[in-house]
């Protein structure tokens, strides 16, 4: 069908910098990888190249800045090191990737219980091929980014593979740091977590830039919580202010399992985060949390999907955005209750705190319910700091600026308080506060 509007806009290449010769050289760098892994990547590249870029009329990209999605000007970066300080929490094991390559793998052996695997995807492809095949990017892409997810699979260099066997509980988190370094660097972070029956684990992913360059990040994480498992996932995204970022989060919750995920977003020029939770068996519970501090001209585009596929499952989503300057946020959430998923208890809430005259918040909270014995509620609000609370603090002698800061931090505390790990709570709070102190 001829599109008359495309004539005025400059034609954009559907693959941009990620042309087939770049893919060929990427494959050449993976000489040691098994054949199935390479075949999977080839198929993904075909899919990526064949799919069009998002269009303005695509419902799953409603309100997004489509023109900002250019894939030009990036390349696969050379290996590098970093002088960034590690994320300030104590961990049972930690892996650090710079430009898609592992530079530091510090599994504090004494801290890791027997049988727990914390390794790279490259090694898992050889030694744990069956697990990787079963869980790596295995869930459907339902949130509109099939093209970018395929790009991720095609170019993923390395990433973290975590396997916690039956009944094993880890007291301290596992820390995975993904770092992009050098202008134009394209990174494809991946973290895969398999928590087997009745295990307990907390995984922290951080995403940071080594410099202020224009980076391209296209990451994914696969979370699998087996029967009765307790999995906590925290993603802290602080890419450079000039980064175009995509992150795909997929969670599978089995019988009586509990998954808590919290995504903190502060970095990037334009950052899209898609989060899919599938509640596949009775008793499953998925708690989906997010905090976003958006300032200057940043755009944060968050899309979520809670699918209740079995009876007696529960999900609870709370996404909070604080908007300053000319920032934009988009929250698009959908709760789906399949036929016969009776006794579903689903909640979805989006709160936007408007801190400037020019900020823009878009909310698309959705429900699709096909079973009648359910409790599904959603809410979305957009408003400024409550003037009464502000007045109360001022009447106690606190300046207006200080009162606003206190109330804004208080806005985030409701979410941070849901974390069990206090050290993590403090580290995330500090990261939020740096955003406000910068100016």
């Amino acid at each position: 069908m001829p599109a008359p509007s495309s004539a005025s806009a400059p034609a954009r290449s559907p693959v941009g910098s990620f042309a087939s010769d770049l893919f060929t050289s990427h494959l050449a760098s993976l000489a040691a990888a098994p054949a199935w892994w390479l075949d999977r990547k080839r198929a993904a590249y075909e899919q990526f190249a064949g799919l069009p870029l998002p269009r303005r009329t695509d419902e799953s990209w409603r309100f997004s800045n489509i023109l900002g999605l250019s894939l030009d000007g990036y390349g696969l970066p050379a290996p590098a090191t970093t002088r960034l300080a590690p994320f300030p929490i104590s961990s049972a094991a930690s892996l650090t990737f710079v430009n898609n390559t592992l530079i530091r793998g510090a599994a504090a052996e004494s801290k890791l219980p027997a049988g727990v695997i914390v390794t790279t995807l490259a090694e898992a492809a050889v030694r744990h091929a069956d697990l990787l095949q079963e869980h790596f990017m295995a869930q459907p892409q339902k949130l509109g980014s099939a093209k970018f997810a395929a790009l991720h699979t095609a170019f993923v260099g390395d990433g973290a593979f975590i396997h916690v066997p039956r009944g094993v509980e880890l007291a301290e988190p596992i820390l995975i740091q993904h770092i992009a370094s050098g202008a134009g660097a394209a990174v494809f972070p991946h973290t895969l977590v398999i928590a087997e029956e009745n295990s307990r684990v907390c995984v922290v992913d951080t995403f940071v830039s080594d410099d202020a360059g224009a980076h391209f990040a296209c990451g994914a994480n696969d979370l699998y919580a087996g029967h009765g498992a307790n999995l906590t996932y925290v993603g802290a995204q602080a890419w450079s202010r000039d980064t175009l970022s995509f992150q795909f989060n997929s969670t599978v919750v089995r019988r009586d399992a509990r998954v808590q995920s919290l995504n903190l977003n502060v970095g990037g020029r334009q950052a899209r985060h898609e989060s899919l939770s599938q509640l596949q068996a009775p008793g499953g519970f998925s708690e989906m949390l997010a905090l976003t501090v958006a300032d200057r001209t940043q755009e944060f585009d968050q899309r979520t999907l809670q699918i209740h596929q079995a009876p007696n499952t529960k999900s609870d989503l709370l996404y909070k955005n604080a908007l300053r300057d000319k920032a934009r946020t988009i929250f698009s959430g959908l709760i789906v209750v399949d036929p016969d998923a009776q006794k579903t208890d689903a909640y979805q809430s989006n709160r936007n705190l408007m801190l400037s005259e020019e900020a823009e918040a878009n909310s698309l909270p959705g429900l699709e319910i096909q079973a009648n014995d359910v409790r599904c509620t959603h809410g979305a609000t957009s408003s400024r700091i409550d003037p009464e609370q502000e007045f109360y603090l001022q009447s106690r002698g606190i300046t207006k600026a200080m009162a606003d800061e206190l109330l804004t931090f208080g806005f985030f505390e409701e979410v941070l308080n849901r974390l069990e790990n206090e050290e993590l709570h403090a580290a995330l709070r500090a990261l939020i506060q740096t955003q406000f102190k910068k100016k």
Partner: protein
Amino acid sequence: MNPLTDTETLPSPDVDETAANPVAGIDQTRGDFKYDVAYEFDAGTGLNEKTIDYISDVKKEAAWIREFRHAALKTFRAKPMPTHWATRDLENIDFDKIRYYLAQGQKPKRTWDEVPDDIKKTFERLGIPEQERKYLAGVEAQFDSEAAYSNIKEIVSRQGVIFVNSTEGLREHPELFRKWFGKVIPTGDNKFSALNSAVFSGGSFIYVPKGVKVAQPLQAYFRINAENFGQFERTLIIADEGSEVTYMEGCTAPKFSTSTLHSAVVELVALKGAKIQYITVQNWANNVFNLVTKRGLAHEEAEIKWIDCNIGSRLTMKYPGVVLKGRKARGEVISIALANDGQHQDTGAKMIHAADETTSNVISKSISVGQGRATYRGQIHIPKHLKGCKNNTECDALLINTNSRTDTYPAITVRGDDNYVQHEASVSKVNEEMIFYMQQRGLTEGQAMSLAVNGFINDLARQFPMEYSVELKRLIDLEMEGSVG
């Protein structure tokens, strides 16, 4: 408007089952009738330039209207079906099999005596007593495309109110209506507003002069009465400064074997300080596609309120909207939807804030019965640099059976830090304890369910005028029959 408009109380438990069921005696096929009518003008089926010239010729329209229609046809053809967000059921509309214009060539009738006998017979089957209608402020009973009966009470015309059909309005009062015609809802707003703009006929044009408060609601009454016949009314209501008017529209349609299409455009203009209330009870037959565009333009301190109730049709897509153009304007949508087997009620609201201190309120309640599907779609838009705007949206959905379905798709855009928006939605089923309690007191499960559903919408139903809320209760009782047990 409905065959049953008398009030009733719940029967005492000791009477027998048939008597105890308030809806048992109602013949549900009562709406299924059709009389052969000799159509004087018939544009045939299908849509092309000739159809439009034909309509224009019959209506002896001015050249600018003819051009307007032709331009709209081009827009209609150019626009794709909105199936990227709407249901694919739209693809089942066969535009070539629809009659776009049909009329008996009647001039609008002024007195009841002049209404032809066979049309009177149709009204009687629907149970509208002649007597009752005489009390109504003005009845524009639309028989197919043209007004078959039009009775404006003296008192309304003495106040200077103009209440005519669209053909008459554009012909007799172009100075009043042309200014706003197609301005609130431009032809290209969507595919179906373009279709209506090309082939519209019928509908009401109302002008209420400055400061006039119309005490009694004005009513129009639409029906479709020809197989495969789409009806495309066009309504434009202008309330001049400080005036007030309430308009009521109710629909029932005979059942037909093949799908029919109803695609109306309703434009409201409330000038400074004016108030317009527009009430609809929609009960088309289960084979009708009801694709309607309704929007109001509220100037400074004006108020527009849509009260919208959808019970019939196969697919309804209707999102009444208000553009809040002037300072302190206020918009409100009260919506009730009931979706039974084979029905999809895709309804909602649009609130476009375009001035400071504007407020809007949306309250939507839907009930899904059997395999029915109810959808809420909403849009709230507060652009840059506006101060003190407020919106409140509440959507509640009730699911009756295990395979009933409901969806909620709101879209909210807010800019700036001096506006306040809140949206809340919930989905639930009828409380089992409530049903148990009522059954224990001797009600059947069906009665208890009916009562619970009526309770769910009670606070909204009370906002309807008396005869409508009674009719609503009857319609819900009918729909709920056989849904449980």
